[in-house]
């Protein structure tokens, strides 16, 4: 008896006992779940098997980044969906970042009117559910843009219609290698030039407009190569054939609506993050920087932004993550992302709810875990050294 009471009274052994009890209950709970699943599956005559992944999916997908045909497997359909998720997340993140930073800066502008407009824009967008944004944008695109036969054309090469946006597609011909080569050379040159200038400045104090020089080198070198090698890029121009445009690059209305909705919705949050990040920098920092004679642009670049970045990037990353997760609402307008293919039609055709949802969840989970791992790494890297 005293032995047990001694164990219980000791700090360390009490911790261990509590943990063992927790583990025991956890094990019991999990086995209870497994037993239930077994019993239910037996009653329904179901089993758990991933073989369905390798049988033909049987359905078509309207947008695929890798070759896909209705005779390909469910697995491949899932991969097509995953790539589509990645695509819309990529576009959405670019749009959200650009728009969000612009809005955040306008919110801080000294111009009362512009700042108010940005304020109301942010409030309107972020207080309306993302699903409604998606549906509204989809509705606007398909209801206001014309039928392909009456498509709005920009210079007869780019077309807007309710079937989406068509732009010319660059096609590589022989001789394209020279352009790649020049591009690589330009990039290598820029890196060395930047290093050289940094060294030069450290030694002599002379400053060069490094950014502009490198920018023009990277832009013009491939352009020169393009003409030197006899213009080896041709454009495939979309043309109306039968019911739709064919050829060129195509952005479907669903992809466009999803990109706009996700981008615009997330931009509202990013704007707030950017604003808060800049405001979080103590006013004394600006005053101190100005008092040692730095120009306003240098104050921003050398003092405010490096500090604001530290505040901004972690919440920004979680917004990117939210955007990616929200892209799963694609299912509402028929964009074929991961949830709509593997977790939608495949699930429905095969009746394998357990297996498909497990795969879908694990994929999202691994994406978000790797992003938070990155974020932790970044945080520890930029953490202010303090006592």
């Amino acid at each position, binding site marked *: 008896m005293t032995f047990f009471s*001694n164990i219980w*009274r*000791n*700090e*360390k*052994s*009490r911790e261990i006992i509590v943990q063992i009890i927790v583990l025991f209950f956890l094990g019991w709970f999990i086995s209870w779940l497994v037993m239930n699943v077994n019993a239910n599956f037996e009653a329904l005559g179901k089993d758990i098997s991933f073989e369905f992944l390798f049988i033909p999916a049987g359905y078509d997908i309207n947008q695929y980044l890798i070759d896909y045909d209705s005779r390909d497997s469910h697995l491949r359909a899932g991969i097509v969906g995953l790539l589509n998720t990645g695509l819309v997340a990529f576009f959405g993140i670019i749009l959200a970042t650009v728009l969000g930073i612009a809005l955040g800066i306008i919110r801080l502008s000294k111009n009362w009117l512009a700042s108010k407009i940005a304020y109301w824009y942010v409030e309107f967008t972020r207080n309306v559910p993302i699903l409604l944004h998606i549906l509204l944008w989809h509705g606007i695109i398909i209801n206001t843009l014309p039928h392909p036969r009456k498509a709005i054309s920009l210079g007869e090469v780019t077309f807007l219609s309710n079937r989406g946006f068509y732009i010319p597609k660059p096609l590589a011909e022989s001789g394209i290698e020279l352009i790649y080569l020049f591009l690589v050379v330009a990039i290598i040159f820029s890196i060395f030039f930047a290093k050289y200038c940094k060294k030069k400045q450290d030694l002599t104090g002379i400053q060069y407009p490094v950014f502009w020089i490198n920018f023009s080198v990277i832009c013009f070198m491939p352009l020169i190569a393009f003409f030197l090698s006899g213009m080896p890029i041709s454009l495939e121009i979309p043309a109306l054939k039968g019911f739709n445009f064919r050829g060129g690059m195509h952005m479907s209305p669903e992809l466009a609506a999803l990109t706009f909705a996700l981008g615009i919705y997330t931009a509202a949050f990013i704007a707030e993050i950017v604003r808060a990040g800049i405001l979080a920098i103590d006013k004394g920092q600006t005053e101190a920087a100005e008092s040692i004679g730095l120009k306003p642009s240098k104050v921003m670049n050398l003092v405010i932004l490096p500090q604001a970045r530290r505040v901004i990037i972690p919440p920004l990353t979680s917004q990117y993550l939210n955007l990616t997760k929200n892209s799963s609402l694609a299912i509402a307008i028929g964009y074929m992302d991961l949830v709509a293919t593997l977790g939608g039609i495949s699930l429905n055709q095969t009746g394998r709810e357990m297996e498909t949802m497990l795969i879908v969840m694990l994929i999202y989970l691994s994406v978000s875990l790797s992003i938070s791992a990155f974020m932790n790494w970044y945080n520890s890297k930029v953490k202010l050294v303090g006592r």
Partner: protein
Amino acid sequence: MKKNKNKSLKPVIQIKEMHKWFGNFHVLKNITLGVNQGERIVICGPSGSGKSTLIRCINRLEVHQKGDIIVNNVELTGDLKNLEAIRSDVGMVFQSFNLFPHLTVLENCTLAPIWVKKLPKKEAEELAMELLTRVKIPEQALKYPGQLSGGQQQRVAIARSLCMQPKIMLFDEPTSALDPEMIKEVLDTMIELAQTGMTMLVVTHEMGFAKKVADSVIFMDEGEIIEQNDPKNFFNNPKNDRTKLFLSQILNH
């Protein structure tokens, strides 16, 4: 001030060959110290010398890794019952007061007596008012800590510890966070407390206080007890060079 000569020689704190590390850093080295009931000990030393850590080990806010600490005949180990007993016998006052900002002054004082000592609420409140009167701020009882000055807050913190009716009081630089004009009111409270015969361990740089109250002064440096002496000898003819250097630095500015 007249020193209390008739102290019993009953030891209340015994520390034997105690060591402590923070990671690889050896903060306390071979500390041996005995404190008798009613004794007042002042601990001083340069910052980072381990003096705070030492007194925090006495109520196990820090866990020592080697050696023994015996408080009130109870050894400090992982045993939770012993720990509870020791903690309700040892009061502590912190540099940054650590009052609970969401509770009133009175609630700060009655929280632990009610929940740890299981006193009836009425009794606890009476006791608290009595002690608040003793530290001369009974009229602030219903205010929140945020509404008080630093000196007042520290006096509340002392009253809060006393409400547990401790046998030993630990003070961890109680005046370092205060504006100069408030230091006196806190020191006065502590001197009054000393007159009641409370066993006290005080980490402080207030040498005036040490001269006036202390039975013995300990000088620590780099985790070791360098010198222990009665205040007269400690200030007038310190034996160790490091003590001399330290005293010359803090007394001659």
